[in-house]
């Protein structure tokens, strides 16, 4: 049920982001989803890709500071209120969402949310109990 997310420490300077995306392209890595958290000095680029372990190795080899984090991917209906139910469910279970980001699939009326929470096990339990659709890692990587 857990998806490997790659986080990359990036200086907040022109050209840094393109250096990462170029490296990914050269290594034939397909990006499924991404988000950037930034401060005045630095940014953290978070990626969901088709082959996380390989990507991580390639980035490390090129000198980037990288970490792998387990996150949850959940499928929701691409309609108003779709996300609300998920967040409510986690709130009711007293689980903190550290951050999240969403993307829409090629198939119609499906959206996906990547969730980084403070307790994966409890979050999965609460979501499954409330009949939300969690995606398996392979489903996300091969999307």
């Amino acid at each position, binding site marked *: 049920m857990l998806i490997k997310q790659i986080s990359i*420490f990036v*200086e907040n300077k022109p050209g840094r982001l393109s250096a990462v995306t170029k490296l990914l392209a050269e290594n034939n890595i397909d990006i499924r989803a991404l988000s950037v*958290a930034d401060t005045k000095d*630095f940014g953290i680029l978070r990626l969901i890709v088709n082959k996380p372990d390989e990507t991580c190795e390639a980035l490390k080899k090129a*000198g980037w*500071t*990288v*970490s792998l984090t387990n996150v949850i991917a959940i499928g929701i209906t691409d309609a108003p209120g779709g996300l609300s139910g998920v967040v409510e469910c986690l709130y009711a279970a007293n689980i903190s969402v550290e951050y999240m980001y969403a993307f829409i699939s090629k198939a119609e009326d499906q959206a996906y949310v990547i969730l980084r929470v403070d307790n994966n096990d409890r979050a999965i339990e609460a979501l499954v109990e409330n009949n939300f659709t969690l995606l398996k890692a392979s489903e996300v990587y091969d999307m």
Partner: protein
Amino acid sequence: MERYWNKEIECMSREDMKKLQDERLVAQVKHVYANVPYYKKLMDEKGVTPDDIRSTADLHKLPFLTKADLREAYPYGLLAKPLSECVRIQSTSGTTGKRVVAFYTQHDIDLWEDCCARAITAAGGTKDDVCQVCYGYGLFTGGPGLNGGSHKVGCLTLPMSSGNTERQIQFMIDLQSTILCCTPSYAAYIGETLHEMGYTTDDIKLKAGIFGAEPWTEEMRREIEKSLGIKAYDIYGLTETSGPGVSFECSEQTGMHINEDHFIAEIIDPDTGEVLPEGSKGELVFTSITKEAFPLLRYRTRDICVLTREKCSCGRTLVKMSKPLGRSDDMLIIRGVNVFPSQIETVLIEQGYAPNYQIEVDRINNSDTLDVNVEMSDDKFSDMVKDIQQKERELAAAIKTMLGISPKVHLVPPKTIARSEGKAVRVIDKRKLV
């Protein structure tokens, strides 16, 4: 009209001063050789005996002392008097491992305070003045030195020490202080606070300020003079030679007169140690010729400056030194505190970081800023911003504990701090001081 504390000395002819220095130097070298085994060994190694030193012309034969010697000899290795004859210890603000401590007999305290009295008098101080001393008191020499000088002159002395700026201003107004002694950055801050509190220079009676213990610019002088409505005088000194008052500014404000009856100044090439002719820029070296307990001979200050004997409009004949142009080694003075990059390095290693770092010092609104860029490592990295910011705060707190001043810490990606082929460029000092 120029005032002097000791006109006979301050305006002494060059010839007489040289004679006085010759006599005192010869006696001092004998005293040190007989009482300081550490220095005797240095002289023996160089093949110099006290008999070789017959006048100031022979000064160059003596070995140098450096801060490293002071650390090695800590605490008593350079002491030239029995402890029973010493009455005071002062210490440097730097805390690179071992502190440097200096010892004083009553005679040493008297001559130090006398030097400070000359500085206060040159700034126009008399027994009718109210002198507010906001240098730190304690081991730091700033407070005790100016306090003693102020007493000698007979000023009504306010031993405020530093901090609590609103109270400083309240006292300044209520007790009508006329002379302010503190670091230039604190003077600037007092000026700023005065105006923020809704006062103007009409509300205070200050006429002069004696500011030192850190480098400052002409531009800053003008700003302080404007914001406090005073004339701002520079003062120089270091704990190793006694404290503030080794040299001081007169009404001409074009450099600081060195109290040559107590300290002989030389300018040397910092790389070769060779003595340079008058007017050359080089490292300032002091020889204490009157101090009893802690008489350093040829002490390398690491301050880069120029000496001049050009006639001064104030009438003093004492040699003048320019404001130090920079340090000959890595030591920084930030907000009046000595900072060595090696101290920051120590903290980084303790906290599990690689010693890849760069220090940026700047002066914003007349206050020094310290930024430390440190390279992130894989094990410190997190996918969450708040974790990284927490690590930056922890590191800043550890550095503050070591230095006594707060830095801003920035974690940066590995290999982003420029590497040098020779000596690493650890420090970028953006303060424009000349």
